[in-house]
């Protein structure tokens, strides 16, 4: 008769008690896995939604008058187009999604139009390539703002002539309630040709780091080192909104996980105490038969480890299924990216048995130190 045989026979006999422990661990792991998986999905969704708010950084020539910039929505000074590559390839600038732009207000078919040329986005050097945030307009094409196409009767597929260049309208934009409604977007090189400014841009838009603290001074210093001919400004409302959203998700997720961990641990501890109490006389007789305290302790600790191990696997499966079920309803944009987070299985299998064993530690100590004079002679 081995201690392992005793362990499995006891579990088979008190299967309900084992199942209750298993349920506690599995419930905790389910919530842990579901919350983390949903939080990951939420991060993706938030990142995507926040990204859709637009770029939060503008890099303009150093001598740009910012009063004029904010008044007219573009810089009155220009800089070489190659600057966008320089800043994107700089090692220590905490930003990404760089878009070179040339924007001017022009008169077109009796309207004041913000003619905007954009170059395809450049990612930051050394960072994983990400899907573009803004427009990717092929040469010879145009995106037309809501007020323009509505008032001028322009439709998708039309060809329009702008400052002597013919462009095919590939997208009539939705109403945005912003200056996009009076904008006409085209490829940067087309706009440079229209305005007679080849190789020139007046703005680089980018997405800055979402971190607390002195973001802007740090970024200015980084940019000053990488591109001393330019300066940076932040659209802080957008940045703060992004930051607060991410922070809130992380904070509440962490709090719920902490509560789940505490409740799960207490539950396992209580069940362990009940198991020890139920088995007082058995423990007494095992000691009387010469079975060592360490062997008796191992009966309880291995039981807890098994509970944690099986609970972790069951919990991971349940949590993942929960996330896959709930995810598409909650995250309409990024639901296709929701997938099992297998590293969580490793963590669950590692941590749950440890926590279960820790929760059973005191009951186990109570088991091996109990007085046999009390338990063995009790009628």
């Amino acid at each position, binding site marked *: *008769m*081995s*201690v392992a045989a*005793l362990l499995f*026979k*006891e579990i*088979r*006999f*008190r299967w309900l008690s084992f199942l209750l422990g298993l349920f506690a661990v599995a419930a905790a792991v389910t919530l842990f896995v579901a919350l983390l998986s949903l939080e990951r999905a939420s991060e993706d969704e938030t990142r995507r939604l926040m990204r859709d708010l637009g770029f939060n950084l503008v890099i303009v020539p150093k001598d740009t008058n910012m009063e004029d910039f904010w008044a007219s929505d573009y810089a009155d000074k220009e800089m070489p187009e190659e600057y966008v590559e320089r800043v994107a390839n700089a090692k220590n600038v905490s930003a990404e999604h760089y878009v070179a732009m040339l924007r001017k207000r022009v008169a077109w078919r009796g309207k004041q139009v913000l003619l905007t040329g954009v170059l395809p986005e450049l990612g930051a050097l050394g960072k994983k390539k990400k899907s573009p945030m803004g427009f990717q307009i092929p040469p010879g094409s145009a995106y037309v703002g809501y007020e323009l196409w509505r008032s001028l009767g322009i439709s998708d597929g039309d060809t329009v002539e702008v400052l002597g260049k013919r462009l095919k309208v590939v997208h009539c934009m939705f109403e945005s309630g912003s200056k996009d409604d009076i904008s006409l977007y085209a490829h940067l090189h087309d706009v440079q040709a229209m305005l007679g400014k080849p190789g020139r841009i007046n703005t680089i838009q980018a997405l800055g780091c979402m971190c607390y603290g002195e973001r802007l001074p740090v970024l200015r210093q980084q940019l000053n080192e990488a591109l001393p001919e330019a300066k940076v400004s932040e659209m802080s409302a957008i940045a703060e909104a992004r930051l607060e959203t991410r922070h809130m998700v992380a904070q509440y997720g962490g709090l719920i996980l902490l509560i789940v961990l505490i409740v799960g641990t207490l539950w396992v501890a209580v069940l362990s105490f009940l198991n020890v109490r139920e088995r007082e*006389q*058995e423990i*007494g*007789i*095992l*000691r*009387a*038969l*010469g*079975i*060592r*305290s*360490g*062997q008796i302790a191992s009966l309880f600790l291995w039981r807890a480890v098994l509970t944690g191990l099986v609970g972790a696997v069951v919990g991971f499966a349940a949590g993942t299924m929960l996330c896959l079920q709930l995810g598409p309803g909650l995250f309409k944009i990024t639901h296709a990216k929701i997938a099992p987070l297998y590293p969580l299985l490793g963590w669950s299998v590692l941590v749950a048995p440890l926590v279960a064993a820790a929760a059973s530690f005191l009951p186990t100590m109570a088991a091996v130190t109990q*007085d*046999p*004079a009390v338990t*063995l*002679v*009790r*009628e």
Partner: protein
Amino acid sequence: MIALENVRKVYRTKRGEVPALDGVSFSVAAGEFLTVRGPSGCGKSTLLLTIGGMVRPTQGTVTVDGKDVYALSAAQRAAFRADNIGFVFQMFHLVPYLTVLENVLLPTAAGGGSAGEAEALALLERFRMTDRAHHKPAELSTGERQRAALARALLRRPGLLLADEPTGNLDPENAAEVMSYFTEYHHEGGTVVLVTHEQAAADHAHRTVTIRGGKLAQ
């Protein structure tokens, strides 16, 4: 075989100190059959567990088979108990999730010793329990449970058998049968210390000592 020297055991409770044994000294020769009698709560069970290395005395020494039991480490004491002492209790204390055969084999979990399934089955046959070998304790009568407990106590052929009211829950017929097994063990050279209330059980012994208020009365 057994020597107790001025053994004192005090339990510390919330209501203060409760003396269970108070300066008990006596010895038991190898092969002797001793009964310990006395009123409830007089310290008989504590005495038995103290001899068995289960309850450390507050004061005094307990020597079994030439070894100062409480000078041994906990692990050594457990091994000593496994090799030399068999316990039988009034409440049988069979492990409910094991069959009778598995209960009898339980002492092998301590490791050491050579007893195995063949010895266990032989003991069950001796105690008329062969047909109950694969039954759980809940399926046994009280007499069968005590016989199974006795078989478990004897599996490793201990030199000393400590029994605490082994017939306390049995009808006279079963009690007589169980006592006959104790006598058999004693005749085979085993030493028995038996705590009992019952005169019929005490009649099997060579000698009876009485405990009153934690002290040896006779």
